[in-house]
């Protein structure tokens, strides 16, 4: 579900659908990111106009939250939990192995645009650590081989 070229009308429709809510800004940002896999720059003035905010205010809110991205991810996203319970079960070695294999740093995308690796701080799978998520699919007791297999299955 990736629409690459957002038009102002499409974005306005997404904004309008959330305007009935109290405090609609986060729901709007989520709706836009859900549709375009990021929040495109061109959406900010449209949001600002709809909510009677300045563009800088909208940008300020968006940039506060780790979730909202200015650019799309790679075709596949691997999230690896970095938090304590996962560390106790070897998450540091796991993420290092995955990052090294792909030649990436946290948040990076492979040059062919196929994979992005992101850190996440707890997926609520702390009793079956280490935890990861590949394209929305949760993986408990993850290891590098399993993550590679999931990625190949998804490719």
């Amino acid at each position, binding site marked *: 579900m990736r629409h690459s070229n957002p038009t102002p009308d499409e974005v306005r429709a997404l904004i309008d659908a959330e305007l009935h*809510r109290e405090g609609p800004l*986060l729901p709007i940002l*989520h709706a836009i990111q859900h549709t375009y896999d990021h929040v495109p720059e061109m959406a900010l003035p449209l949001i600002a106009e709809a909510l009677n905010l300045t563009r800088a205010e909208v940008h300020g809110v968006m940039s506060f939250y780790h979730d909202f991205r200015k650019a799309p991810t790679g075709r596949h996203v691997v999230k690896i939990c970095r938090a*304590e319970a996962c560390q106790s079960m070897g998450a540091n070695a796991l993420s290092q192995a995955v990052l090294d294999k792909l030649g990436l740093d946290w948040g990076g995308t492979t040059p062919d645009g196929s994979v992005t690796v992101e850190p996440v701080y707890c*997926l*609520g799978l*702390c*009793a079956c650590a280490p935890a990861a998520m590949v394209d*929305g699919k949760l993986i408990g007791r993850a290891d590098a081989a399993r993550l590679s297999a999931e990625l190949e299955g998804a490719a």
Partner: protein
Amino acid sequence: MKIWVPMDSAAKALGADEVAEAIRAEAEKRGVEVEIARNGTRGMIWLEPLVEVETEAGRMAFGPMSPADVPALFEETHPKALGLTEELDWMKRQTRLTFARCGVTDPLSLAEYEANGGLAGLRRALTMSGEEITDEVKLSGLRGRGGAGFPTGIKWDTVRMAHADRKYIVCNADEGDSGTFADRMIIEGDPFCLIEGMAIAGIGVGATMGYVYLRSEYPDAIAVLSRAIEIARDAGVLGTDVLGSGKAYDMEVRVGAGAYVCGEETSLLNSLEGKRGVVRAKPPLPALEGAFGKPTVVNNVISLATVPVIFEKGAEHYANFGLGRSKGTIPLQIAGNVRHGGLFETAFGMKLGAIVEDLGGGTASGRAVKAVQVGGPLGAYLSPDQFDTPFGYEEFDGQGALIGHAGLVVFDDSADMLGMARFAMEFCAVESCGKCTPCRIGAVRGVETLDRIAAGDAAAIPLLTDLCETMQDGSLCALGGFTPYPVMSALRLFPEEFGAVKEAAE
């Protein structure tokens, strides 16, 4: 034949969907009629996917299951048969009040919810005055399960007595602490319980609208709760006429955006309003000026989900469990490097060592336990020397520790405690809302100082101690204020890893 396969995300992360699919395929192959029902988890995560087969005698448990184990489910004996679920040691030893239905019922069946005690509490509350409702909560001794342990009834009373044209119930489902998953588990496994608790809160304090601020890292919980709210609204549990009482209460899910600090209640309120999740100075208390400037109850998921059973069974019944001022039960979440990880609900007062060794079965790696971090990334590390500490708010405070949201993360003797201290500072630096200097700048300096110590500069240790004191005293909220707990406890318990012993010997 009816077979239960959990749809809890931990069970799914361990292959529950694949097991459910294998059961369907195998039944078809054998021409056996099978009803596959999806439940929440019973909380024995080390046995997930835990499949249950309904028999005359009760539900028989099998686990941990893989698709390869499925054919034998249709045979006489099974190598992974565990016996009756209710007779398992882990189940029998619990006092399941809040989690009574979790893993038992279909999470989205309101009929099953009611058949198992659901809505009895709300029906009773609807016969009571607002004051009677808040008194009942006070009498139960319930304290906030989000971390600070503030008495829930007193908070509700403040909101009840505030005059305003609109009031709110806000449920804090941001559950960002590593080692915790109780909120996720009950929302995925028994969402009506949270809805009922929030409705009672709304009726009690005169709030007509509720928001559940749910973290984006929990997509399954978001889907289940959103659906449950629709079902409850269609059935008249929510809406303009709650269960025919003429009273209004409705609610909505709001999705977080990956900021840990938004679990802090005032930051959460800013985020809900569509602002940067910066912490607000108190006063004003959220109870008086909370969401959109109106009186607001902010409570953790478990605090609110415990309310129905208090009204169903009576405040006294609840208050009879526990230890000292820690009344009732607490869902312990046993996690990390541990053999038997999962959720265990029990009265306050269990000794830390019994939780780790007896329930948890020691480490998953089989090595010695080195430390246990209790209460998330802002909680202290405790060593086996402190295993006699009973699980209670005051008892942990006495150890320079906190119980937080009751998550316990076990580490074996290979853990790098200097590395863990550095991680605590790094996490604080990444997640700081930026409002106060001791937290924003202090955490960055903390990382640098720990790097100096790691490079062998033991003279930096007093700097670290000073820095922690500054953060503790000068921070506006517990992110900056409590990050020193894990850092200083690691230093205190394992000074040799910080090179401190060597220096003292020189």
